[in-house]
């Protein structure tokens, strides 16, 4: 499989000399074309920072991230707090990326409406976001990211602010959507069961400064059936990851106390 995203010796610091925070590094990883990769890790480990580097919102302090694509902006991003625009109607929000790319409005509307339909929001196209619930706003954000049909989809804990039942529904919707075009996806989450359900590979990140401490291939078949959540293998894998993370968090806390 061709490599889509290659991170080599990536380091990221914040702040100046005395106050410097070593957020990420040294990070080395490879994501292949069409792979769905989840990154899990303790809070503050730098997962979001790394995602933002891949999305070209910030640059690494050292090392490089190579994205193999001919487009200037091959990635689309879905944020944790939706970030859809309250001054635009749902359809205009979904069409936003296409407007920026210069796609004619008529075609843009068709594509935006198509993805809104896949997320069950076609009937709310003319509404303003103020009248939508949190889950609906997040779906608009996803539709917006998908409407441009990006080569890479970056998702930063997109379901964190959503209730448990809706979260399961959105996970399944995302699986179905992904199955249709199989884009490259880099998905950040705290939730281990979410990561195992969705991903081909799960990368475990250490506590700050973030490095990859495990790279686990998820053994379940594609198309992924949501019922795998209740299989024994799923529970076993989740248990292993949980143990790994717990050790990581404990040793990190111990090292902090020792200082």
């Amino acid at each position: 499989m061709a490599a889509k995203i290659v991170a080599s010796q990536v380091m990221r610091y914040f702040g100046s000399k005395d106050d410097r925070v070593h957020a990420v590094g040294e990070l080395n990883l490879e994501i292949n074309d069409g792979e769905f990769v989840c990154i899990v890790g303790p809070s503050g480990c730098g997962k979001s920072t790394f995602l933002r580097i891949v999305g070209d919102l910030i640059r690494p302090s050292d090392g490089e991230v190579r994205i193999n694509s001919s487009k200037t902006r091959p990635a689309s991003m879905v944020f944790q707090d939706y970030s859809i625009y309250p001054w635009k109607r749902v359809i205009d929000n979904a069409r936003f990326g296409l407007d920026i790319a210069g796609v004619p409005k008529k075609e843009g509307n068709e594509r935006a409406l198509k993805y809104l339909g896949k997320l069950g929001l076609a009937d709310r196209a003319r509404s303003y976001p103020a009248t939508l619930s949190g889950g609906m706003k997040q779906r608009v954000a996803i539709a917006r990211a998908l409407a441009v049909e990006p080569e890479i989809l970056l998702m930063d804990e997109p379901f964190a602010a959503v209730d448990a039942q809706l979260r399961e529904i959105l996970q399944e919707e995302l699986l179905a959507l992904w199955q249709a075009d199989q884009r490259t996806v880099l998905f950040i989450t705290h939730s281990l069961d979410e990561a195992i359900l969705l991903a081909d590979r799960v990368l475990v990140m250490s506590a700050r400064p973030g490095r990859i401490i495990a790279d686990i291939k998820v053994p379940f078949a594609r198309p992924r059936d949501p019922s795998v959540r209740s299989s024994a293998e799923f529970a076993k894998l989740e248990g292993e990851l949980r143990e790994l993370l717990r050790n990581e968090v404990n040793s990190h806390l111990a090292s902090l106390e020792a200082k």
Partner: protein
Amino acid sequence: MATEQKNAIVLTPTAADRDPVKYNRRRRTTEVTLAIAVPVVLLVILQIGADQEWWSRIFYPSVTDVVRELRSMFVERDFAYDLWVTIRRLMLGYIFGSLVGLLFGFVLGLNRLTRKALEPLLNALYTVPKIALLSPLLIAFGFYDKPIVVLIAITVFFFVWVPTQSAVMSVQASFREAATVFGVNRWQMFRHVMLPATLPSIFVTLRVAISVAILTVIGVEFVFAPQARGLGYIINDARSTLSSRVAWAGILIASVLGVTFTWIVRIAERLLLPWNKEDQGSKD
């Protein structure tokens, strides 16, 4: 309402809980009635007080006195011209001042370099009392409309520039980031994100600025020579000739101006900002 009965607190519905629809309707009626009744009662008391001479009718004329005087001012004293002159100066000064204020607010808010370059200078100018600029302006522009318009424009400029710049700089980073990921250029960022994000607070600023402009134009007309005419001149002249009815009439008109223009700005806001409306339909 809670009643204590031997170590028990009983929580029962209040009147509001028992019949919320009726309670709300009743409350709304009370509020609307008060909103109308309070000013009306006040005016009635003023009218009776003046009629009964509870206070000096010379210094504090009754409502009817003021209205009668107003009519005579329009008919006999060409008050319409003074009013027109004031409104014209107000409009020109306000429009120029706020347009330039908006421009500076956006440019300095968006561009770090220009901000660092110009902010110290503008801050220094901010605190200069604008009346002090009267003489140089008169010398530069002659009489009378131009210096007044420029003075209003300068005052309005500062009142609009500062909050606009602040609003631009406090647009949520996540709004900007979402656009950056799609590869927006500067114009697109402005048009799709920065401008609509700041418009609600800009309208608040514009409403404040129109009030400031009215205060300024009247104040400036106080200071100018009688040949300048205007609403401010009328009010000030009335003070010195002890025509309190004219003064109060002028004050009433100034207040009407304030209410009218503020209302116009609100209408503009409602037209341009449809997403701020309360009545958009049900949440899911």
